[in-house]
């Protein structure tokens, strides 16, 4: 047989004819599913595989005290009603396993190598970090999967992003992926499934790999995948959802990696040692510079508009930009290792008087684990707000939003205009960098703090 990429193996394993793809796991949340369930009801269709479907409430849940508004309550109630009617297991607000859908999948071990996974959310690519083919879909497709457990799909193209060399001190998975998007652009991987490979990827922990795969969509990719290896298997072992015969599963998962001579439609090389900690300056995730750099000269109308929206002037050193808020959380950086990395920087320091900072764990499980380790105390005593699990200020559907004009150092994934609140200004960066900004009150090269 001709050599095949990991993607091609997973695709072939799930293809029905040349245009239908079988879906192993369908993750559901409150925002993009109500119209799909309603569609099933109107057509009198059953849900084909409740045992392959899992729901949680994350986008629109409060993370602090206080009740959700009336519309949010109605949406959460609709999810509960729909899950009850169609027999879908639901981790609702208050459940010990509730959390951001892309955090709880791997955490439960229901995300596994070689699977096809979809969800009505563009950051579904996160699950590709374990060697699954995982991508976001719209509500019509959610309905299609609920009804048929399949999707009509044309085979995407393949792209290899090869990371050469090792990450420097103070640099993280977030810097890898932000640097990559800056290099190839917000549509640089459009129409492609990306495979992330190379020394720097192999060296990443499982959770750090999720940060990389998570932002595939920010480069326009259909999905992002990382070959499963010992790191993957060690992460999965003992989790509730893994196969009873774990050893046999590992045997099979070992065969998923791309064959040595497999070809890709495109190959990109990233020079990893050249990457400093990265930070976005504009209003799309390709508008990124090293923290050691300055706000760039605008090259086109988009840049011009971004500068005006962000209230920045070309040539201003990034480290001179003061922030009002710090958000630590999201499906990109809301896992336990992210909280540990930030706590490491925060320990023994105080949040700057001019800054309001919050930590939103990615799941109730992450929150409980952090509390066991005493991280909540580190954050609280430094002046951070310690919240419940959810998407929170990453998209600002709940009350966690920026006021107009406020500037936020954020570990989330999108710096679009108004993303974190109308008129709010977002700078994307890593958890360690967010912690550094919180304690100094400005965008800061974290290497200056951890070095001292």
């Amino acid at each position: 047989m001709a050599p095949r990429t990991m993607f091609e193996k997973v695709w072939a394993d799930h293809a029905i004819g040349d245009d239908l793809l079988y879906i192993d796991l369908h993750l559901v949340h409150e925002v993009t599913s109500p119209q799909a369930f309603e569609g099933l009801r109107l057509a009198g269709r059953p849900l084909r595989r409740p045992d392959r479907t899992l729901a949680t409430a994350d986008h629109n849940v409060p993370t602090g005290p206080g009740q959700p508004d009336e519309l949010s309550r109605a949406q959460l109630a609709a999810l509960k009603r729909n899950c009850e009617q169609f027999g879908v297991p639901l981790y609702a607000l208050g459940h010990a396993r509730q959390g951001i859908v892309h955090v709880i999948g791997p955490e439960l071990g229901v995300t596994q190598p070689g699977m096809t996974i979809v969800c009505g959310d563009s950051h579904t690519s996160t699950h590709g970090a374990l060697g699954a083919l995982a991508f976001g879909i719209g509500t019509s497709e959610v309905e299609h999967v609920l009804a048929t457990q399949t999707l009509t799909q044309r085979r995407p193209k393949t792209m290899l992003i090869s990371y050469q060399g090792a990450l420097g001190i103070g640099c993280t998975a977030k810097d890898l992926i932000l640097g990559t998007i800056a290099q190839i652009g917000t549509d640089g991987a459009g129409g492609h499934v990306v495979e992330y490979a190379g020394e720097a990827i192999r060296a990443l922990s499982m959770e750090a790999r999720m940060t990389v795969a998570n932002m595939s969509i920010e480069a326009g990719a259909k999905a992002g995948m990382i070959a499963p290896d010992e790191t993957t298997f060690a992460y999965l072992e003992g989790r509730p959802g893994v196969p009873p015969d774990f050893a046999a599963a590992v045997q099979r998962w070992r065969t998923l990696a791309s064959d040595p001579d497999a070809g890709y439609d495109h190959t990109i090389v990233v020079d990893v040692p050249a990457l400093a900690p990265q930070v976005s300056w504009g209003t799309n995730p390709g508008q990124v510079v090293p923290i050691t750099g300055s706000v760039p000269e605008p090259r086109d109308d988009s840049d011009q508009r971004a500068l005006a929206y962000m209230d920045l002037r070309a040539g201003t050193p990034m480290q001179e930009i003061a922030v009002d808020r710090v958000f630590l959380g999201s499906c990109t950086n809301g896992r336990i290792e992210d909280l540990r990395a930030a706590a490491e920087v925060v320990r023994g320091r105080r949040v700057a008087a001019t800054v309001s900072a919050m930590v939103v764990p990615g799941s109730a499980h992450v929150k409980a684990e952090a509390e066991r380790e005493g991280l909540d105390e580190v954050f609280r005593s430094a002046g951070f707000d310690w919240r419940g699990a959810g998407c929170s200020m990453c998209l600002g559907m709940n009350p966690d939003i920026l006021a107009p004009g406020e500037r936020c150092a954020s570990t989330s994934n999108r710096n679009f205009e108004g993303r974190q609140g109308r008129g709010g200004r977002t700078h994307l960066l890593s958890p360690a960098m967010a912690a550094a900004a919180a304690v100094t009150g400005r965008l800061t090269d974290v290497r200056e703090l951890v070095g001292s």
Partner: protein
Amino acid sequence: MKPVRVISGNVAALDRADVDTDQIIPKQFLKRIERSGFGEYLFWDWFREPGFPLNRIEFHGAPILAAGRNFGSGSSREHAPWALQDYGYEAIVAPSFSDIFRSNCTKIGLLPVELPEDAVRELLDRAPDAATIDLERLIVTLPSGREVAFEIEADARERLLNGWDEIALTEQRIVEIERYEAERERDGPNTLTV
């Protein structure tokens, strides 16, 4: 879904690249559990900015929206195509679309048309001058009369031309799906017992 064949009429111009779905329909409107009525929230913040191009009176009522590259990037929210369609657009023309947005459009009968930069430039520069999009012939006739070919997946074209329900089409292949489940489905996590 209503069949789509020929879309002919004025062009509204939004000469911006990377128009993301957060701009098309901001998050505060995603709390609704209905599928209709999103048009009034389209480009909510941008419509309130002075000089926003789509506020120009000559663009009102145009069935075709022309825009810059990477239109519909970001969030997978289908609320974005729902809002564009509910507002009155029948087709979006751009040099490129984000994958999920493009797919979402074809599911609801909003036609995404990818054209070369120079053809989109003519639409943007001459807007509101009318154009015609013929899905049967896969040809766009620009205001100058020049004809430009475009591509769309054959199955999506067929569905759009006939207004077919995609789920009903897949249900006709239930035997294949059952055969897959019987012969090829992998043991996977059972979400009911985790």
